[in-house]
């Protein structure tokens, strides 16, 4: 690893970048322009984010605040819990624990560091971790393994039964560092009564584990506050995603990235609510004025990402889609299955604050419908699973095509994506399977990935 990379802590560097960027928004245009050369590798992000106005500003501020909490947790007497993106952070915030969402931490590093997090990924291998594991964990995990971040006090995951590769990264880290570990385990079915019971018992066990680690009981008042905030966020997200159904979509395409970043890190906190409210306001204004969410104003096609996005420095996927006039209809990362979401059907959850038990039960239900946890727990063509969801979303959102973007480390989806693509094609939805790594440009450069998408669009006569 280059000496330069170990000069400052990974989490602190991210915090410094995001909070500085957010602070400059309070200054004059001249001050902002003077700042840009000092954040050269971040510049490509700040500008498109800033171009979205208030939502972009709140996104940067929200990320800055999240990272501040991570960096200062121990100093403020709080415990740090390493967890995964598909684990709702609300319970941690309610218990005064700061969650480190590992995958968003990798994405943040990939966006702002030249060369992404590749050296940290390689460092994992030096510590005995497999190079074939998922890069979305390996990126930030390397920084934690080499002690270049505030050390987590515990590990909590919810991916056993969903994604072994993901779960394995966390259990490896817990065993490597010899710190307490808890797993929420999920049965193959989502909505069966016995699955629901299992989720709820397991979730109560998690609370007992967190109480043991912190020495504090779960405070119902505080939990109610967090759930109330989640409820607001759910409503805002549902409204935004409802607007995406309009043709042309009035929702700027970068919004799905904003939802990803803040819902996973600040779910249940006011920062995320404020950003979502600003996003909805802008989208509604566009809709009221018959505008699309594109800067160019023209929507030429609508694409559904059936798995995740592609992250490289300067958000090239979103820039490309913007340039082509292709609406990003979201992927599994921004679908949460609130009961009132347009895609939820009868698999959705509703939050309740009627009693402590009701709050815990509904949090468990919400948690069991998070990205990946919902779609890929059972056979891909079973009820509520990946195929049913992709077909329904494609229809609901009028998708012209579908794209699978993931990582070679994703054993689970690579085990069934050819079948999914075949079924989507049979249903008349042109589908592209990308071999690139969403978090590691060394597997395939963005320019090659872009070329493959362009070739696909040309051959299938989409957005021409």
């Amino acid at each position, binding site marked *: 690893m280059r000496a330069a990379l170990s000069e400052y802590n990974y989490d602190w560097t991210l915090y410094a970048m995001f909070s500085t960027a957010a602070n400059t928004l309070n200054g004059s245009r001249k001050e902002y322009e003077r700042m840009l050369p000092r954040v050269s590798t971040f510049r490509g992000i700040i500008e498109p984010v800033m171009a979205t106005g208030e939502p972009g500003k709140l996104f940067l501020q929200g990320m800055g605040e999240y990272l501040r909490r991570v960096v200062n947790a121990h100093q403020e007497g709080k415990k740090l819990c390493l967890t995964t993106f598909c684990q709702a952070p609300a319970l941690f915030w309610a218990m005064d624990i700061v969650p480190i969402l590992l995958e968003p931490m990798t994405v943040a590093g990939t966006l702002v560091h030249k060369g992404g997090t590749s050296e940290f990924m390689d460092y994992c291998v030096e510590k005995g971790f497999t190079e*074939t594991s998922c890069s979305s964990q390996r990126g930030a995990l390397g920084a934690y393994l080499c002690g270049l971040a505030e050390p987590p006090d515990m590990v909590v995951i919810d991916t*056993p039964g969903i994604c072994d590769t993901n779960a394995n990264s*966390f259990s490896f880290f*817990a*065993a490597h560092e010899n710190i307490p570990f808890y797993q929420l385990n999920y049965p*193959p079915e989502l909505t069966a009564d016995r699955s629901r019971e299992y989720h709820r018992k397991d979730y109560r066990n998690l609370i007992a584990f967190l109480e043991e680690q912190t020495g504090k009981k779960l405070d119902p008042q505080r939990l109610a506050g967090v759930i109330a905030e989640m409820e607001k966020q759910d409503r805002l997200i549902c409204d935004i995603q409802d607007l995406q159904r309009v043709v042309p979509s009035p929702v700027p395409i970068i919004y799905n990235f904003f939802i990803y970043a803040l819902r996973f890190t600040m779910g249940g906190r006011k920062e995320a609510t404020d950003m979502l409210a600003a996003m909805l306001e802008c989208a509604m204004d566009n809709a009221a004025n018959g505008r699309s969410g594109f800067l160019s104003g023209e929507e030429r096609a609508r694409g559904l990402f059936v798995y995740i996005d592609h992250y490289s420095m300067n958000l090239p996927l979103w820039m490309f889609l913007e340039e082509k006039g292709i609406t990003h209809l979201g992927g599994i990362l921004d679908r949460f299955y609130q009961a009132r979401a347009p895609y939820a059907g009868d698999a959705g959850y509703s939050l309740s604050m009627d009693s402590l038990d009701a709050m815990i039960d509904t949090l468990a239900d919400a948690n069991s419908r998070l990205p990946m946890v919902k779609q890929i727990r059972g056979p891909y063509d079973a009820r509520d699973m990946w195929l049913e969801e992709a077909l329904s979303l494609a229809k609901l959102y009028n998708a012209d095509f579908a794209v699978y973007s993931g990582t070679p480390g994703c054993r689970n989806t690579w085990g069934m994506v050819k*079948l999914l693509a075949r079924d989507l094609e049979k249903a008349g939805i042109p589908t592209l399977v990308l071999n690139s790594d969403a978090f590691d440009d060394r597997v395939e450069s963005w320019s090659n990935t872009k070329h493959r998408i362009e070739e696909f669009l040309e051959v299938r006569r989409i957005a021409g």
Partner: protein
Amino acid sequence: MNDILVTAATRVGNPAVDEWKAEGKGIIGHVCSHVPEEIITAAGLFPYRLRGIETQSTSIGDTYFGPFICSCPKAILENAGRGKYSFLDGAIMVQACDSMRRLDECWRKAGEDYPGIVPPFFHYMGVPHKVTDYAIDWFVEELEKFAAALEAQFGGKVTSEALAEAVSLHNETRRLLIRLEEMRAMDNPPLSGEEAMTLILAGTAMPKSVYNPLLAEELDAVSGRDGGHGGKIRILLAGSVVDDLAMFRTIEAEGAVVVADTVCFGSRDYDGLVEEENPSFKSLARRYLNEQFCPRMFGYYQKRLDVLKKKIADANVDGVILQNIRFCDLHGSENGLFERDLEAMGIPCLRVEREYGPLGDEGRVRMRVSAFLERIAQAA
């Protein structure tokens, strides 16, 4: 060694399969050591552990699975696609690991292109990844569903008596294999690792009622024999699935003897007995969740390390070979932890990544093993 055992250990089909079919009885294939075979036996059926041996390519497997997948389920699908598993009356798919659980849909979808390759009974079974009272209860329900599905398809009844008989039969197999393990641990083991593995593998492809007497006979025959392995470097083999003999042959050709293992066709499959007093689905659930060494059970690293340390001590092991099939991240990364912790205790370890099946990369593995044995010899 008895030819029937050798054939069962090395071929997909074998005389025991033929005889069972000739009697008009059913065979159920499965893919994981978390499947309680006792239920299949109690239903009057023969549990057969599926393997991808004898494959020459994975062209069918590659059509359905993606490229970044363990070659073991691909090779099993290859055999199915080529009709080698046409003797199966049923198959159980299990949430074993990510690659293996996807055999479920890949096999079913391949069946649309290769008619007749999907057995008439095809059942998906969930297995919890943790051991708690509610996980055991949930698994019991899953076993009840499984037994009911077998009964509905094949007409037999999984009665308490039949279950007790099956538990007793399978425990007898385990006791015999534990006896074999003790023989392997002797200073001068009467059998090589390859011979021992031949005996173990045969049991996964034969009805236990046929296998047990043959195994007992073999153990009696070799007991007290001078195997000629005294003084050799003693190896424990750990990691991903090993279900063919090439790996043992490669290690032993370099002058070592494999005296113990923790692989899932080996000791992982027979460690731990099911309670024999009034056995129930709950007894099965307890045994199959508690006594498993697979890293799919997340958060139990220390327990697995303790098992490994005990086996190393019991068999007086000189070195541990930690192998994993490419893309098997569970074993691959746990091997990294084992290597760190065992080396710190002064136990030499070799970590090696390989492909599944008869070693396509035998030369490379042989070179790594040779260098490892040289390291142990020099330190002695």
